[in-house]
């Protein structure tokens, strides 16, 4: 799907070629999907439904992006249609899982992602229909796609619930959490749109997107680079879980050469940032032209890295430094690297979209005042949901462990998220914060949400295990 989007990007000149290319790319995707579904006998299996959802969401994302790029209004109709179809497949997948497991699908990260993506798609359609924010899909659909990709990788078997999780309150809690988080994601997308409408300098976007991608690659290189190779967690295909040497210590395998490739990509991804710095320092705009070229180059390299990563880390056996013999690995063992790589490509593509199509975007988006107001409204929706989510979680904890609040990291970060949005509301209502400051706040709030959702689950225990 990255390719499908890269094609329109590489030709800034508008016209029929572009429309045909996007159309072809989508037809190709749909055909592939149909073939894949038809190949495996059980058409309505959960895997296939999710795959269909992924394809439709990708198609929608491509069409939204295509709309952003070409301004062809008819794309939106098809994009909405694709989102509807994806939503239908997504709903069916949830229903299927619910039916199979006998409990609402909210008991694992996988199942929560399922509901999160669903809510996000619903909210995207609402924002589009009710508030006329047509291009919102260019931001939310990639988030949804990353979500579905992660889902395909995470373990999917239906697990029986351990005693502590058998509670209606848990379902209430997680449903509310997903609704709240999806609303936060939407407010984030709207705040981004606002910044575009508010004439945020294109160079600033360049700096931010480059810095984010640099952050992705730098953290990969810093934590996983091993003499030119890349350290990946070993994967046990039978138990479908990571391999542990001892409690909390994972076994790593080294994938040769991938480390150098990551290093190279880090350098190229960092170059736009260097050129941007030069442009600011020397006050010479010709460096910005260089920076834009470097972004273009970095996208090509990022896509290449992603493909190499997919090819090498999908399966295969590699040696380990800690144990003798060859150990298998799997994409599922490195969900964060993968989502980081996919996210990096999206971020760079979004920058190019802005760079080339800014006037069109401005014409198509609602006015900045409206976007500001809708962002606020979305947060007004998210905040009570967050409150109820925390309350129901506390009630559940009290029923299960006899304590409604015990300051565990997840609880604490949920409270922090709540406080951040409470601050936003206070600043807005009593101090009259509008516009840019409010938008930055909304973006920061979503970063905290993401950390609460993923970071606490994966980074904090990891930190504790290795510290």
């Amino acid at each position, binding site marked *: 799907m990255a390719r499908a989007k890269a094609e329109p990007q590489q030709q800034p000149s508008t016209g029929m070629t572009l429309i045909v290319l996007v159309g072809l790319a989508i037809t190709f995707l749909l055909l592939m999907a149909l073939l894949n579904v038809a190949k495996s006998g059980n058409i309505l299996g959960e895997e296939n439904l999710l795959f269909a959802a992924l394809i439709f969401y990708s198609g929608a994302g491509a069409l939204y992006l295509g709309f952003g790029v070409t301004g062809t209004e008819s794309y939106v109709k098809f994009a909405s249609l694709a989102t509807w179809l994806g939503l239908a497949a997504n709903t069916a997948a949830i229903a299927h899982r619910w039916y199979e497991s006998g409990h609402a699908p909210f008991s694992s990260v996988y199942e929560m992602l399922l509901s999160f993506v669903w809510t996000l798609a619903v909210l995207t359609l609402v924002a589009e229909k009710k508030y006329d924010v047509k291009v919102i899909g260019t931001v939310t659909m990639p988030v949804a796609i990353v979500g579905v990709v992660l889902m395909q990788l995470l373990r999917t078997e239906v697990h*029986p*619930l*351990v*005693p*502590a999780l*058998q*509670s209606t309150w848990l379902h209430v809690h997680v449903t509310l959490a997903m609704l709240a988080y999806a609303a936060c994601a939407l407010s984030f997308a709207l705040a981004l749109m606002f910044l575009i409408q508010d004439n945020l300098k294109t160079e600033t976007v360049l700096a931010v997107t480059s810095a984010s991608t640099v952050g992705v690659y730098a953290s990969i290189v810093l934590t996983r680079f091993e003499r030119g190779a890349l350290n990946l967690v070993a994967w046990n295909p039978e138990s479908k879980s990571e391999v542990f040497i001892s409690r909390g210590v994972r076994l790593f395998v080294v994938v040769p050469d991938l480390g150098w490739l990551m290093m190279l990509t880090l350098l190229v991804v960092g170059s736009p940032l260097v050129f941007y710095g030069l442009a600011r320092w020397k006050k010479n705009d010709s460096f910005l032209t260089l920076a834009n070229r470097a972004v273009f180059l970095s996208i090509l390299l990022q896509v290449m890295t992603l493909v190499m990563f997919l090819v090498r880390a999908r399966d295969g056996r590699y040696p380990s430094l800690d144990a003798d013999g060859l150990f298998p690995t799997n994409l599922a063992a490195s969900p964060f690297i993968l989502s980081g790589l996919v996210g990096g490509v999206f971020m760079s593509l979004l920058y190019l979209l802005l760079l080339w199509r800014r006037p069109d975007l401005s014409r198509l988006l609602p006015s900045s005042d409206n976007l500001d*107001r809708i962002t606020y*409204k979305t947060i*007004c*929706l998210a*905040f*009570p949901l967050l*409150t*109820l989510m925390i*309350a129901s979680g*506390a*009630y559940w904890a*009290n*029923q*299960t*462990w*006899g*304590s*409604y*609040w015990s*300051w*565990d*990291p997840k609880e*604490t*970060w949920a*409270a*922090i998220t709540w*406080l*951040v949005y*409470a*601050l936003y509301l*206070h*600043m807005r209502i*009593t*101090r009259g914060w509008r516009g840019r400051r409010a938008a930055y706040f909304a973006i920061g709030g979503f970063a905290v949400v993401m950390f609460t959702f993923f970071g*606490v689950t994966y980074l*904090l225990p990891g*930190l*504790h295990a290795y*510290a």
Partner: protein
Amino acid sequence: MASNFRAFGHKLWRTIASIQTGVVLLILVVILAAVGTVILQRPATEADEMQSAYSPHMLRILDSLGLTDVFHAWWFLGLLALVSVSIIAASIDRFPNSWRYFSRPYKYPDESFRRALRPQKSLAITDEESGLVAAERALHGMGYKPERVVREDHFGIFAERHRMSELAVYIVHASLLLIFFGTMVDGIWGWRGYLSLNEGQTSNQIEIHDGSKRTLPFAIRCDTAGQENYQDGTPKKWWSKLAVVESGRDVKTKEIVVNDPLLYNGVRFYQSSYGSNGKVNKLTMEATPSNGSGPKQSIALAVNESASLDADTTVRFAEFFPDFAVRNGEVYLKSNQLENPAAHLVVTSKAAGKSFDVWFPAMPEVADNSKAPYLLQATDLKMSHYTGLQVSHEPGQWGVWSGVVLMGVGLTFVFYVVHMRFWMVPVRDPRTGMWSLWIGGTANRNRDAFEQRFNELVESVEEELKLLAKTAPREQVTTIAGN
């Protein structure tokens, strides 16, 4: 001097009640809470784990700053107290104004207000009365209860909805304080502990989490406890049948499961774990006389129990090792986990005047099982189980839950209930003498949706005016006739 002091007090009050103070305090809470999730915390992390994670020097610094137990450190609790003070001060500071607004609604707009208000609209009317009637009808039609306001020789119509919304923010703040209050009460008078009971055991000693013990005025007995598994062996359900014993009588019994605790006198007992306690409930075995001259008998023994096998032979269950090791012909206890169990039985024969050791499993280097007058064969080993109960006393939790409910109500009002006000005043142009109906409205939030509402109202008034114009002549006739 006194005025100086008062000025200082006033300044201090302004500082405490200001939104900046509140925001700074909240930011501090956010930062410190985040720190508390990154640094390992004391009660939850074992001491040796802490030592392996940080260097001794580092650990000393962290400990002395209270960073290894942020959420119970005096400065964190103090900060939360300051937040409460700031919320209270800010609410007190702003409440009188809101209350005035709430208790004395502004019903008749004066001229300067009429000039400034947006949105507003003027419609031409034939006379004062028809304007008022049309306004009332339109408002009735939209579900409002219009009120006729008289000011000297002027009339006006006022209608509003959800005035409560103006005070909603105080409800939210009050609910937050209620929650804080509840947790504070729990922090001071509440406690949490653990109680482990073997089946059949009675106890009133609770192990509190800080290591101390607490004696309850009543005791808890566990009659039976059990576990149900899924097909793949993971636990599905734990249950325990508990009885509350007070002065020798059973006053309450309940079968508890996870998520469904037993509550007695404000103390809650939660099912939290279940397992084997390494003790034997019954060991079942078959005994056949070694010389083959008797029937096979089945006996079941608990530790230290004995049974007679025949007139002058008894067997006693002497020892049990859940996990054993043998060294130099001696049996040692390796651990208390049920990993590798061994049972020691003693068969005593009065006739021979001798005792024989029998071990399960057979250990030739310790004792020769075949010397005993009976051949013993273990058939079943039933372990006894314990049930793990979390015990808590949270006298403040009612404050917390009512605070939560109140907050839900308050937030609903804050975000979704809009205080809408409409005024309509017939105005006579002093120059031309023509009447017009001034319509104005305002909402405390969600203004764009309100504007739509306002336009609907204006349209509706126009309709009513047209209708009135059609029927007006007849109405006038009736009025005259009535006079």
